[in-house]
């Protein structure tokens, strides 16, 4: 696709989407930096690479709509309009944070946005059904959207939820972000029948989309959400996307692949295990190789990584893209500064 003409409706929409993506990306990069500086505790799961899916879906929501999120919830929350400073303060563990410092990044909640995250795989399924049930009861055309990963479809409660939304005809959109990985396992090897067939087994229409192309996501999601508002059936959006940061910050596979020293330190003791009692040698070598493959695939360089940001930017007039980036960056930077000052970490 080539660049649209400045001022056209397409460019205007894409600019809006790109703005949402930039805010999400920069906010996540800020979190990554804060985490590496040791100012954020515990795990940190980022949604870097999921921005097109998030922006393409969330920008269709309006007041009274609801969000059921997994542990990569910063991008959708930012996209939904949650203010940056309280969000950052939350992850910095401040009492002034979005949730008083009680939640951290895995359990972010914003009642005004009817949005809640969970660190339990599959949990967005039941939650979105409830949010949808309330919306249906209210009868004002509200919808509820869930985000979850490809690995999550094997969690019973998620499958149950796809069914529940189907048979109760709830105004719910299930968005599956398929990055093909669940922590250190390839989902394809552990998802019988494949992802698309699985998601389609509950009587819900499934739309597949390239989740790195925000305009495509936008079009499809727009159609699905509009249909839900008119009383149409719950639906599934299956969006292929890729993440650059592994499962969480400090992902051991990514680290091993990245640092020769770490890899050697990991592999040496494994090589020693090729001798001594145990499985036949061929089985051992096979196991060792399969670990190596995981490291290579998970952590290796991504020559073909189609960064959704870059794909979107390339379609905008250069000047527009840069302006959006600058203003988003400035906004995030100033929120980070304010949050750091407020927590007294400014000079850390």
């Amino acid at each position, binding site marked *: 696709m080539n660049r649209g003409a400045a001022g056209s409706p397409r460019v205007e929409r894409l600019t809006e989407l790109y703005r949402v993506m930039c805010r999400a990306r920069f906010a996540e990069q800020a979190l990554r930096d804060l985490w590496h500086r040791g100012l954020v505790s515990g795990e940190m799961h980022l949604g870097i690479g999921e921005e097109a899916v998030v922006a393409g879906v969330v920008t269709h929501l309006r007041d009274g709509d609801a969000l059921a999120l997994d542990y990569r919830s910063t991008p959708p929350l930012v996209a939904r309009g949650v203010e940056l400073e309280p969000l950052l303060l939350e992850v910095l563990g401040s009492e002034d944070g979005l949730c008083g410092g009680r939640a951290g990044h895995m*359990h972010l909640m914003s009642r005004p946005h009817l949005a809640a995250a*969970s660190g339990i795989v599959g949990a967005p399924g039941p939650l979105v059904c*409830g949010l949808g049930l*309330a*919306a249906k*009861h209210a009868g004002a055309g509200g919808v509820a959207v869930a985000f979850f990963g490809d690995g999550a479809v094997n969690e019973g*409660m998620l499958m149950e939820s796809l069914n*529940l939304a189907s048979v109760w005809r709830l105004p719910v959109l299930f968005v599956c972000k398929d990055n093909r990985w669940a922590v250190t396992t390839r989902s394809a090897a552990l998802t019988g029948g494949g992802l698309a067939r699985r998601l389609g087994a509950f009587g819900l229409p499934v739309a597949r989309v390239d989740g790195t192309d925000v305009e495509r996501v936008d079009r499809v999601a727009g159609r699905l959400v509009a249909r839900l508002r008119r009383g149409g059936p719950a639906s599934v959006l299956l969006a292929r996307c890729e993440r650059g940061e592994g499962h969480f910050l400090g992902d051991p596979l990514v680290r091993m692949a990245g640092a020769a020293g770490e890899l050697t330190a990991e592999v040496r003791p494994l090589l020693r295990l090729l001798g001594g009692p145990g499985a036949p040698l061929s089985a051992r070598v096979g196991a060792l190789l399969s670990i190596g493959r995981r490291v290579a695939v998970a952590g290796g360089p991504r020559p073909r990584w189609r960064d959704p940001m870059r794909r979107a930017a390339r379609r905008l007039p250069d000047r527009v893209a840069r302006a959006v980036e600058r203003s988003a960056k400035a906004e995030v930077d100033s929120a980070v500064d304010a949050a750091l000052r407020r927590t007294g970490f400014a000079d850390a």
Partner: protein
Amino acid sequence: MPRTTFAAAIDQALAEAMARDDRVVVLGEDVRTLRRGLYVRFGGTRVLDAPISEAALLGCALGSAMAGLRPVVEITFVDFVAVALDQLLNHAAKVEAFSGGRWRAPLVVRAACGGGYGDAGQHEQALWGLLAGIPGLSVVVPSTPADAAGLMATAVDHPGPVVFLEHKLLSEYWLDYLGGARRPGVEFDVPADGAVGDVPDPVLPVPLGSAVVRRRGDDVALVSLGVGVHRCLQVAEILAGEGVDAAVLDLRSVAPLDRRAVTDLAQLTGRVVVVDEDYTRGGLSGEIAAVLAEDGVDATYARVTTEGTIPYARRLETATLPNVSRILTAARSLTERA
């Protein structure tokens, strides 16, 4: 006050709540049949039959509560909560805490509990201690129709999650469906004052965390809940014949626990027998010992609980659940010691 059965009392409380507040909905497997009165009166948008998917169902109820409804979700038997515990432990109980107090979920989980009709240990558990052990959940176990109605009324209006347990031995329809109660020769040890009683109309709410003394006495305190209360009253009667004045405390709420009521009665009598249909290590009987110890109450202590998996055979089942003779033995072990 009209005489009402235990189950009808709950229905009455629900009907009042549903008539008063359009946000109250009933969700669960077979509820259009089980709660057909509510279904016929309030229609299909208020009473929804669920697929056999307790985790999604419970989580759906929670989500709807977070978004403004006041769901009463039924998990047919409390035993089945085990397939959906995550939604209580990691979600419902934690919404308020994780949101820094900014968000609460007015959810009622209703489930049948308890044994004594021969269904064995996968369908007859109490499990109230396990649930009450989770910070953020309230758990109530009524022992009379009036309390059943009153606690349900309170639960529906409560801003946080409440687990409401309905003992099957007090609910005629459960005994009929599950126990085949109308068959010849089939008998259940149903406490009459638990199964039928006076219920105010409209229902009088019973506050959470408030125990009630069912019988006064100075010599020994029998602390119980649910069906156990009635067993204790029987025991108190027998003990009275032996010149021992036993008090009977009905906890009604497992969480919050009415610490004050427990310690007051323990202080007065100096002897406490906890009668808890839940497992010995389920949590409640231990918690009462801890409360007494923490508060430095000088009282001797014994407990009558369910020690293992509830067996099928009626004779074994009777011996496993707290029964009059075991309670009597425990009480005497304290009163005769002094």
